């Protein structure tokens, strides 16, 4: 047991001190934040200069009101965001000819793009926006909103209603979802549940993959330089395995803990309480640790027999699929947390942690379900660890070809 601690300390401190770890500690959150925030920031960025938008208006009635509305948008220095250019307006317009003329202007970058309003646009509301790049969503949304309002106002007027009434009659709608609990109503939101379940899954996913991969790597290294022989002559294989699992888990938890702190600090700063209540968090943590142990044992059983880096990658691929499965099921579970299939699947050890983590924030499962799943998890972990230990014991000394599935089964039986 003491030697397991010696191994754990070594694995932990040697990796913590490495540059790769420190880099990962800081760079990963930066990348995450970057991926989450940067595109939004960039997309939300204002245009840098005034854009000239051409209009071909075969109705002859839409150009003027649209120009008034669109030229109200201004840029940071007060200059207009858009200028609408009259290309051909009036009911005698030859659209084909005007389009050819406008296309040439777009080609020559004289126009950002142009709008084609056919002669029937007032009735069928079909219009076309043509440009080199079809990606300026904000411009298109603004054109769409304003044209919609212009057309609606026209229709109101035709029926003798003051357009001002339209604005008064517009209803604001916002459905709040309320979760019914014994203490009374508690406001919740789909996003909040989704978010907490997702964070749970991602953290688990990440932790298993990193520490599992590190474990497979370190065994692989020790196998290839034969340090493993010295190790197993100084301690038992189970001490070695336990030490590695402990040390590398501590490493993973250090990393996750550090990121959690960053995340908490930033949510505190932005004042959003995306966190579920403490009792739920605690229970989720229990499932997190159980899930972690179970998956780690699988990782050892499948990972330690590999003999090359390429095989380690392959095995990693399979394990990712195991882990991806619950992620794929997040949305269906959230839609029907009480469905029979959800309850049944909850009892499959591979799925228990994630399914419980999904169900807890939506609707707290009954006490007996919680106890039953925890007991099932503990039993499964116990057996999986025995299997992993037996495979580990043989695999660390095996060299050459990777063991076949049949051989693995034999190792487990003989152990």
């Amino acid at each position, binding site marked *: 047991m*003491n*030697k397991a601690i*010696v*191994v754990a*300390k*070594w694995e932990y401190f*040697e990796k913590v001190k*490495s540059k790769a770890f420190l880099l990962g500690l800081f760079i990963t959150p930066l990348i995450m934040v970057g991926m989450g925030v940067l595109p939004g920031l960039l997309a939300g960025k204002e245009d840098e200069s005034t854009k000239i938008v051409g209009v071909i208006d075969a109705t002859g009635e839409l150009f003027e009101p649209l120009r008034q509305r669109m030229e109200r948008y201004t840029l940071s220095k007060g200059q207009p965001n858009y200028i609408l250019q009259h290309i051909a307006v009036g009911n005698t317009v030859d659209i084909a000819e005007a389009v050819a003329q406008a296309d040439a202007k777009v080609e020559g970058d004289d126009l950002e793009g142009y709008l084609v309003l056919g002669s029937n646009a007032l009735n069928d509301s079909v219009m076309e926006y043509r440009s080199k790049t079809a990606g300026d969503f904000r411009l298109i949304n603004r054109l769409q909103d304003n044209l919609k309002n212009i057309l609606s106002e026209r229709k109101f007027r035709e029926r003798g209603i003051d357009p001002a009434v339209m604005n008064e009659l517009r209803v604001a709608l916002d459905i709040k979802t309320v979760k019914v609990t014994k203490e009374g109503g508690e406001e919740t939101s789909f996003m909040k549940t989704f978010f907490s379940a997702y964070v749970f899954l991602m953290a688990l996913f990440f932790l298993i993959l990193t520490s599992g991969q590190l474990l497979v790597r370190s065994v692989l*290294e020790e196998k*290839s*330089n*034969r*340090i493993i*022989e*010295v*190790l*197993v*002559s*100084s*301690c*038992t294989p189970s001490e070695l395995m336990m030490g590695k699992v402990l040390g590398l888990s501590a490493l993973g938890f250090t990393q996750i803990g550090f990121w959690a702190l960053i995340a908490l600090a930033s949510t505190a700063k932005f004042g959003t309480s995306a966190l579920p209540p403490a009792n739920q968090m605690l229970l989720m943590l229990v499932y997190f640790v159980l899930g972690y142990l179970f998956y780690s044992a699988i990782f050892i059983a499948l990972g330690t027999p590999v003999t090359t880096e390429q095989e380690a990658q392959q095995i990693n691929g399979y394990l990712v699929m195991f882990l991806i499965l619950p992620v794929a099921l997040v949305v269906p579970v959230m839609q029907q947390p009480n469905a029979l299939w959800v309850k049944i699947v909850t009892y499959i050890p591979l799925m228990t942690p994630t399914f419980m983590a999904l169900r807890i924030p939506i609707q707290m499962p009954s006490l007996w379900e919680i106890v039953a799943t925890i007991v099932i998890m503990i039993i499964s972990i116990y057996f999986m660890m025995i299997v992993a230990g037996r495979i580990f014991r043989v695999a660390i*000394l095996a060299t050459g070809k990777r063991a076949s599935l049949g051989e693995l089964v034999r190792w487990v039986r003989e152990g």
Partner: protein
Amino acid sequence: MLRVANLRKDFSSIRAVDGVSFDVERGQIFGLIGRNGAGKTTTIRMVLNILQPDAGEITFDAKPFSDQTRNIIGYLPEERGLYKKSKLLDTILYFSGLRAMHHHAAKAEAKKWLDRFSLMPYADKKVEELSKGNQQKVQFITSIIHDPQLIVLDEPFSGLDPVNQILFKDIFLDLKQKSKAIIFSTHQMDQAEKLSDEICLIHHGRVVLNGSIRDVKKRYGSNSVHLEFEGDGAFLRSLPGLKDVIMYENSAELQFADGFNPQQILPEIAAKLELRKYELREPSLESIFIQTVGEKEEAKA
């Protein structure tokens, strides 16, 4: 100290070790010799409890292998390797910790050994920054730092330059003085001959020769002649009364049949070669080795 009795190990259809027995005492250097693949390393691995024997018994002071045994053995494997990215001192302390050595004691010992190997300036360097020879020294330190009673060294001299070989040899003799039991395996007979008190020759998994160097040599008689010469020595192979011959470029070791007096052919040799040395002595371990293993091969064929 160590008793190995009737050890057997099969790898699928191959019998790697077949009925190997030997004893190693404290204060003894025990040479385990044999060709590559003879079963030396497999035997060593079983002694160290890395492999489980299929049959046979291994005891340490009449007791079977236990967790206590782990702390009194030291092991230098044949294939060298250390954690490349780790620092020298940290690495040594890790291995000493695995042998249940206390941190403070380990630190003091580590410094002593690093000093002896002139590695002190590198204590905080990474292993990968060292030369191969120096890495081997570090690994050697990890195998003896915890003052083991039984030290097992698999091909300890391979890859060492002559200066370092002498350094290692001196340390072996020191350890022997301190009543440690030392097993070392090698296929270099001159090393085994210079160092061992006892030898055990393994061939195809079986012990074909064992005992003290003196006894072994006696058994093979002393009817051996060492020659150093200049000229073409090819004719030496066809001398009368010859049992065996090992030819080198400018030297030869001739083994004559018992009862044959080598003196009588000296004139013939002296006439054909410019002799620098003519010495009557015991056969070298190398010639015994070649003879023994050669005979086995012939018997097999």
